C-alpha cells in the first residue's frame, strides 16, 4: 500500500500542496479531482519523485511502510515502472515516435532487467493483446503515428502495467480522447485494476468519470484536500462547498431560450471535400472523403450543434463554412452570398470563429489589444478601434487593462474569453465554435457557456457549435447534427435527438457519455 502522510510541496516558496494525507489501497480506484492548478498533477509527481527543480517537499510518501520520498534518484528510478506506473494525458508525446509499439513495451521490461530480449518481446506482444490491441489489426510492429489516440493510450497503459506495479497513476488519461474511446479506455483501466489487484490513482477534473470509476474520491482545492470519502457518499452528500460547486458545474446548463424560427442564415448544399492521403513515391494517391454530400441550414439566432468522433469531418466542415478551404463540390451561402476562400472582406466579416486550443490560437509575441483588433483588417481600422477592443473585452468579462498584457499571462478560460472578444469585435452574424470549450475545466467551462448564452441573447448571434462532448452540445444548442465518416447521419432538435436517437452512431455517442450518478442527491 502507498500512503501519503502530511505531504506538502512548495515550488519556489509558493505552496502548491498542503498537508495531504491519502491511502492508496490495492484493488481500489481513488479519484483525485480538482480544477487545474489545484495540485492534482503535483501530487502524482511527488509520489513518483519527479518534482521539478526548486520544489521543496515535506511530509512523507511510504510504500508498505518504507519511506520512498527521501530515496536517492537512482533507487527511485528503479522503483518507477516496477512499483509505480504512470499514464499521461497526451499519448502521442508519451511515446517515442521512432520505436515500434512492441519495442517500446519490451524496452520497459528490459530496462528493469525483468526479461531476456526474446522473452521481453513475447511478453510485450501478450501485454498489447491484454490492453485490447488485436495483433491482426494493430501488430506490435506498428509505429505510434499509425495508431489512433485511443490505441496509443492503450500502448501507454501496456507500458505502465508491464512490470505489474502496485500503483498505477493515470493523469487525465482520457481528456484528449473522444467520448466513445474514453469509455473503452476507462473500462480497460477498471478491468486491469480488478485483475491485477493494483491501486489506481485516477486524476481528473471530470466528476462524471470519477462517479463511474472511483471507489474513493479526494477533492483538491488550491493545494488543500477539502474532502475525501467513498465516492457514492461524497457525490450524494458533499460536505465541502467546493465539492458542491464542482458538482453544480458538472451538470451545468446555461439558462437560454431556444430559437429556431429565424430566417435561414447559412445554407450548405451538397458539400463534398476529398483529401489526398498517403502520397507515396510509388503508391497511387489514396483519396479520403472528408465531407460527403453534406447539406444543412442554420437559421438566424439559432445555435446548431455538430457532433461526431474525431476524424469524422467536423473541422473540415467548419473550415469550409469559414471560407478557409475550398469545396470539391457543392455550395455554401451565408446571408445569400457565396462563401469561398476568395470571398470579399465584406462577406468574410459575417463569420468569425473560436478554436479549441486556448494556447495556440494567439500569436505569443503580440499583446491582447493587438490580437483582439486583428479582425479590423476586414473592415478597415475604425478611428475608435482601441475603444471597441476595450468594449469587446468588457463584454466577455475582462478588464480594459488586459489589452496591454500578453496571452500567456492568462488562464485557459480567460484566453477563450479573449478569443471570443476577438471574434465579436467586428460584430459577425455567425460564430463558429470549434471545440471551443473542450480544453477547459468543468467549472470554467460552465462560466464560458453562460457567457456564450448571454451574448447570443443580447446580440442575436448564430452559433455553429462543434464538439465531441455530448453534454456541452446539449447545454448550448437548439438543433443538432450528428456526423460519421463525412456524412450527416442524424439531424433534429437537440432535446428530441438526445431523448430518442435513431441512428446507431448517435446512440453509441450518447451511451459513451460518463453519467454522474448521485444516489440520493437532491437539487443538483
Amino acid at each position: 500500500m502507498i500512503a501519503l502522510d502530511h505531504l506538502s510541496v512548495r515550488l519556489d516558496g509558493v505552496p502548491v500542496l498542503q498537508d495531504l494525507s491519502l491511502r492508496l489501497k490495492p484493488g481500489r480506484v481513488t479519484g483525485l479531482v480538482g480544477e487545474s492548478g489545484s495540485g492534482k498533477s503535483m501530487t502524482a509527481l511527488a509520489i513518483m519523485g519527479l518534482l521539478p527543480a526548486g520544489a521543496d517537499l515535506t511530509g512523507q510518501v511510504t510504500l508498505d511502510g518504507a519511506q520512498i520520498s527521501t530515496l536517492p534518484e537512482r533507487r527511485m528510478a528503479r522503483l518507477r515502472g516496477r512499483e509505480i506506473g504512470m499514464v499521461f494525458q497526451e499519448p502521442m508525446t508519451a511515446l517515442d515516435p521512432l520505436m515500434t509499439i512492441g519495442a517500446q513495451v519490451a524496452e520497459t521490461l528490459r530496462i528493469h532487467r525483468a526479461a531476456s530480449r526474446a522473452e521481453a518481446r513475447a511478453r510485450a506482444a501478450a501485454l498489447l493483446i491484454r490492453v485490447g490491441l488485436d495483433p491482426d489489426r494493430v501488430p506490435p510492429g506498428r509505429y505510434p503515428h499509425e495508431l489512433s489516440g485511443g490505441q496509443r493510450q492503450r500502448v501507454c497503459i501496456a507500458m505502465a502495467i508491464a512490470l505489474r506495479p502496485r500503483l498505477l497513476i493515470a493523469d487525465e488519461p482520457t481528456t484528449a480522447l473522444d467520448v466513445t474511446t474514453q469509455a473503452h479506455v476507462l473500462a480497460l483501466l477498471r478491468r486491469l485494476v480488478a485483475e491485477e489487484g493494483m491501486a489506481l490513482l485516477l486524476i481528473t477534473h471530470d466528476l462524471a468519470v470519477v462517479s463511474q470509476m472511483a471507489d474513493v474520491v479526494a477533492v483538491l482545492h488550491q493545494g488543500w484536500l477539502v474532502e475525501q470519502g467513498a465516492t457514492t457518499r461524497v457525490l450524494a452528500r458533499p460536505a465541502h462547498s467546493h465539492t458542491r460547486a464542482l458538482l453544480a458545474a458538472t451538470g451545468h446548463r446555461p439558462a437560454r431560450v431556444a430559437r429556431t424560427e429565424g430566417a435561414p442564415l447559412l445554407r450548405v448544399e451538397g458539400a463534398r471535400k476529398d483529401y489526398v492521403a498517403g502520397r507515396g513515391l510509388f503508391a497511387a494517391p489514396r483519396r479520403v472523403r472528408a465531407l460527403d454530400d453534406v447539406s444543412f441550414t442554420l437559421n438566424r439566432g439559432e445555435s446548431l450543434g455538430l457532433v461526431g468522433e474525431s476524424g469524422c469531418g467536423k473541422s473540415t466542415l467548419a473550415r469550409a463554412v469559414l471560407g478557409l478551404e475550398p469545396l470539391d463540390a457543392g455550395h455554401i451561402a451565408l446571408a445569400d452570398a457565396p462563401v469561398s476562400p476568395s470571398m470579399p472582406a465584406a462577406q468574410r466579416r459575417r463569420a468569425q470563429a473560436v478554436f479549441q486550443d486556448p494556447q495556440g490560437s494567439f500569436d505569443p509575441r503580440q499583446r491582447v489589444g493587438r490580437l483582439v483588433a486583428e479582425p479590423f483588417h476586414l473592415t478597415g481600422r475604425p478611428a475608435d478601434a482601441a475603444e471597441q477592443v476595450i468594449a469587446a473585452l468588457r463584454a466577455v468579462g475582462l478588464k480594459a487593462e488586459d489589452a496591454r498584457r500578453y496571452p500567456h499571462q492568462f488562464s485557459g478560460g480567460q484566453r477563450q474569453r479573449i478569443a471570443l472578444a476577438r471574434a465579436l469585435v467586428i460584430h459577425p452574424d455567425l460564430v463558429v465554435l470549434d471545440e471551443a470549450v473542450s480544453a477547459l475545466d468543468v467549472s470554467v467551462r460552465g462560466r464560458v457557456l453562460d457567457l456564450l448564452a448571454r451574448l447570443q441573447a443580447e446580440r442575436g448571434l448564430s452559433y455553429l457549435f462543434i464538439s465531441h462532448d455530448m453534454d456541452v452540445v446539449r447545454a448550448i444548442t437548439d438543433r443538432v447534427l450528428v456526423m460519421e465518416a463525412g456524412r450527416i447521419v442524424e439531424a433534429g432538435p437537440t432535446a428530441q435527438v438526445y431523448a430518442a436517437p435513431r441512428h446507431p452512431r448517435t446512440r453509441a455517442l450518447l451511451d459513451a457519455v460518463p453519467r454522474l450518478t448521485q444516489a440520493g442527491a437532491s437539487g443538483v
Partner: protein
Amino acid sequence: MSRARIPLPLWLGAPLVALALGMALLALVWTPHDPAALAIGEKLRAPDWTHPLGTDHLGRDVLSLLMAGARTSLAVALVAVGIGAGLGVPLGLWAAARRGTWIDDLLMRANDLIFAFPSLVIAILITAAFGPSALNAIIAIGIFNIPVFARVARGGALTIWSREFILVARLAGKGAARISVEHVLPNIASLLIVQATIQFSLGILAEAALSYVGLGAQPPTASWGRMLAEAQTLFYGYPRLAIVPGLAIVLTVLGLNLMGDGLRDHLDPRLRQRAVQ
C-alpha cells in the same frame, strides 16, 4: 516567475565578440600607427611601448594591422550575412507560405543546387573570375549564405504555419505575405538571429581563407587572412606574426559560436528550463 538566467556560453562569447567589434569600430577612427605605413628600418621589432605587438617584416605596426584587419574581416562577414539573410529569409518565407506547391519545390531544389557545390571552391572561382577584391569576396560568401537562411526560415515558418493563430489571421482576411511578415517572421526571429551569429563566424573564416590565398582583400587593405599569409614564411623566426592574427580569428569565431549557442538557449523557450506556475 524569476527572470531566466543568462546561459554561460553567452557570458563567455559576448565579451570576445564585443572585443573584436570594439577593435573594428575603433579602427574606423584611430589606430596607434598608420597600418599601411612602411618603415623598413623598424622591421621585425619585438613588442615594446611604441609597438605593443611589435612590427612585421615591412615595419608596419602589428596592433594597427590587427585593428584594421578586424574592420575588414567583420565588415566582409557582416555584409555577407546581410546578403544571405536579406535574400534567403524572404525566399524561405515564400516557400513556406506556398508549401507543397511547385514554387516551394522550385525554391528548395534551387537551394539544394547551391548546397551541392563546395562553397569555398566556388568562392575561389568567383573571385578568380571577377578579380580578387574584398567586394567580390563579400558577394561570393553572401551567395552561399542565401540557401542556409532560406532553409532555416522555411523550416521554422512551416511549424508556425500549422499553428491555430495563423488560421485566425486568415479568418481576418490576411494574405500569405502579410501573415508571413506580421506573424511568422517575429516568431522565427530568434532562430534567425542564432543562425546569423553562426554564419557570421563562418564568414570570418571564409574571408580569412580567401585573403590567405590572395583572393580577398588586396594590399594595402589589411586583413587577418593576409596577415597570416604574409607571416607564413617568417613563422620559424617570428611566430608572433602568425599567432596574433591566428588567435584573433580563433577567439572571434569561438566567441561567435558560443554566443550563438547561448542565444539559442536563451531565446528558445523549449530549451530554457520552464518555471512551473
